[in-house]
């Protein structure tokens, strides 16, 4: 995540190369000082490996169904099995993978869309701002869970991971657009925007090349937080029966299927729960580290 950040930004704005690079180096250095965030990043990457490389190495895939019912954790089934005889380790790998795919896709779609929406609104102000933000308000007014439920009932693809990702993206973009708009509103008054305008840059170029890169800190933090909230939203949706459906699986589905097993087969309830908490926790800490790194005021406070 941090590496893509370093490589992408300088190319995007050649004019500002030195300034950007030094700033990004500063950000990186500040981030690395946040030990909890760095530790979380390492852990998060390990979870990603577990989810995407694990299935290649482990003997049972998620479709394996020939195990015994409700076997507690053992050498053969390190995380135990469920009633149907699925290997929970294989299922957890796949579940983590699907949940991560969902949340990364949501972070990508919602952030891109929300950032553009907010930037356009903030850049033009006036009636365009009014219309765009009222539309965002509609989405924000709708209690998200209701829409998610109605939409996923509707979509045939609601049962597939990408369908769910689309639904959740639809709910996440509006909040991000608000935040980005706020940042852009203050950025547009600064000299470098004036300069770009004076040099005859088009509106689109100003938004994409100048405003968005400078709001990058905010956007990245928003994207990070979106990952964490999406993981939890997916779980909540599964709980009320509107998530990914078997034979595919997700962490939300696993934990939902285990909600009656808290007492009798605790491994089914606690392991997937642990994965969810680990992902959400590490991502939140990474987000916190990034926020501190991008927002020097916080570090200045240190006494």
């Amino acid at each position: 995540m941090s590496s893509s950040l370093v490589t992408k930004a300088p190319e995007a704005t050649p004019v500002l190369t030195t300034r950007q690079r030094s700033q990004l180096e500063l950000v990186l250095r500040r981030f690395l000082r946040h030990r909890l965030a760095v530790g979380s990043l390492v852990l998060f990457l390990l979870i990603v490996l577990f989810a995407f490389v694990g299935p290649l190495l482990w003997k049972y895939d998620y479709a394996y169904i020939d195990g015994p019912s409700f076997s507690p954790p053992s050498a053969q089934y390190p995380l135990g099995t469920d009633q149907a005889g699925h290997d929970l380790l294989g299922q957890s790998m796949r579940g983590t993978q699907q949940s991560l795919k969902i949340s990364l896709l949501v972070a990508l779609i919602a952030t891109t869309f929300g950032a553009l929406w907010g930037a356009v609104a903030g850049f033009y102000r006036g009636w365009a701002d009014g219309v765009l933000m009222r539309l965002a308000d509609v989405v924000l007014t709708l209690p998200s869970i209701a829409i998610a439920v109605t939409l996923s009932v509707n979509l045939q693809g609601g049962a597939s991971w990408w369908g769910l990702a689309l639904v959740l993206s639809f709910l996440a973009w509006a909040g991000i657009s608000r935040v980005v708009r706020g940042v852009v509103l203050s950025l547009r008054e600064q000299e470098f925007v004036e300069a770009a305008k004076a040099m005859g840059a088009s509106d689109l170029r100003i938004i994409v090349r100048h405003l968005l890169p400078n709001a990058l800190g905010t956007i990245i933090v928003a994207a990070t937080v979106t990952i964490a909230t999406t993981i939890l939203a997916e779980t909540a949706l599964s709980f009320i029966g509107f998530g990914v459906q078997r034979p595919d699986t997700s962490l939300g589905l696993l934990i939902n299927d285990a909600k009656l097993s808290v007492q009798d087969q605790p491994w089914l309830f606690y392991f997937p729960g642990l994965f969810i908490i680990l992902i959400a926790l590490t991502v939140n800490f990474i987000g916190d580290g990034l926020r501190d790194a991008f927002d020097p005021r916080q570090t200045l406070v240190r006494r």
Partner: protein
Amino acid sequence: MRTRSKGLTGLIAVAAASLLTLTACGGGSESNKETPTSNAGFADCEKSPNTCNSGNTKPGGEYIFGLEQSFTSWNITTEEGNTLVASQALSGIIPQVFKSDPSGELQLNSDLLTSAELTNQNPQTVVYKIKADAVWSDGTGISAEDFIFMWKMNSGKKEHCSECTPASTSGWDLIKSIVGSDNGKTVTVTFEDGKTYADWKGLYSTDGLYPAHLATKQGFDLNKPEGVNSASNWFSETVPTWSGGPLLIDTFNKDQSLVLKKNDKWYGKVKPSLDKVVFKFIIDQGSVIPALRNKEITGMSPQPNAALVNGAAETPGVIYRIGHGYQWEHLDLNLKNKYLADVALRQAIFTAINVKSVIDKTYGVFDKAAKPLGSHNFFPGDPNYKDVVTPTGQGSGDVEKAKKILTDAGYKIEGGKLLTKTGEAVPAMRFRHTKGNQLRATTAELVQAALKNIGLDIKIEVTETLGKTLSTADYDMIIFAWVGSPLYQGSAEQNWVTGNGGNYGSYSNPDVDKLTNEGARSLDPKKAADLINQANEIMAKEAYVLPLAQKPTLTFTYSDYVNIRDNATQWSPTYNIQEWGQKAA
């Protein structure tokens, strides 16, 4: 401020500690692998289902029975009101003519009637004799007027009711006249000439009687279609203050609970001993066992699963029993699919599926007595039950046999792909099941794995609307359940005859049609069962529907209460609600 945060961590500590003990608890039960189908207090239910857990009661006490849904309509004849929970909750209020005891025998409600008999075959005539002392809770006698009113609400005829929405009109629509005599205490029901309704015992039994005189009192003219409609709506909307049974509604807390007390005017032999019977609505299955352990309910009869059975078994002072009900799960093929139209492929599919191993991973996990079902109409234990499936080899999981059926019919399996006679690959079949049903999802995965052995791919898709999926036959294979009943004749006709409402997969065989129609109309139960079994044998060979298993039922209660026992029929454990009570010391 500090103290608050401490309180919080304290709570978390409590949570953590309780988890440890619970885990230990769960671990303990693991060693005790053999789950019997019942424990101590219910142990004799296997042998004597009608009398187990019986005993003398002492007066007083409150019994809290959990129901899996809430309900809004008080008129159980309507499409909206006709739910299992409503009829359970109202079983102490609405008088019924017949009720099934736990063994599946329909018993005349001898508190209400002295007799209900078929007196003539053509035209079919049934005579009900109401007891003189059978009265509604306001003292008005139960009479022929009540029988006529029910008929008008259910017949589906515009001249009876302008806008009634009955859940089912079967039987009611065949009645020609209902005449009261002997001061309304004798009721003669005559059916249309030449029409027979074999399941006549279901009339006034699966629903019951509503007090017509109260509707009249409200100003509804029951001789006019609009009046009947208004009366029907009034009964739907109004919380009953009336009763024709042992109990009377005390309070109703919408969506939460229904509290019943004794009906002072109850005319039956056994007077209720409990002060109150409370029905609590528990929609979330995960809440049942915590509520039971917390004594927020004292008994329930929910759809069973492993966690509920274990939870009931592990709660101190609770007895439970797993019974076998009238719902049965089955796998259907859609014969409109051009590949499935070939009987050889259908036979091969059913042969490759091992029903026993499907059961082991689903119901068998908590119900050790679960076994494959061999009939499409009857259940083991019924004298009419005849296993017509096992002899065909279907459900055996015998892959070699399945392959042989296919190769004999000219199919080929090459590179793990099934090819037809013409060398065309058989495309993937869409297997549908209702969303959120874990056991069906498991079945789907197991079938998928089994059919891979004969080179057939299965694509599993959930459905949100089972009704629409079925009625539009939007599936290649589907798993769902039929709700059977001791009254079997009507459903056989409905489900297996060409073009009928329940025959979603378009099965058609003239011999089956003829035998089933004849069986469904016969008023001689023995002959009827014989004909239906003959038809079933033909149908089973043609591999249209593969019965999987009878759905288990579960009933549990704290053992300080007696006379509560499992009843797998639709009359459910509430069939003898007046007998429930605290165990006398």
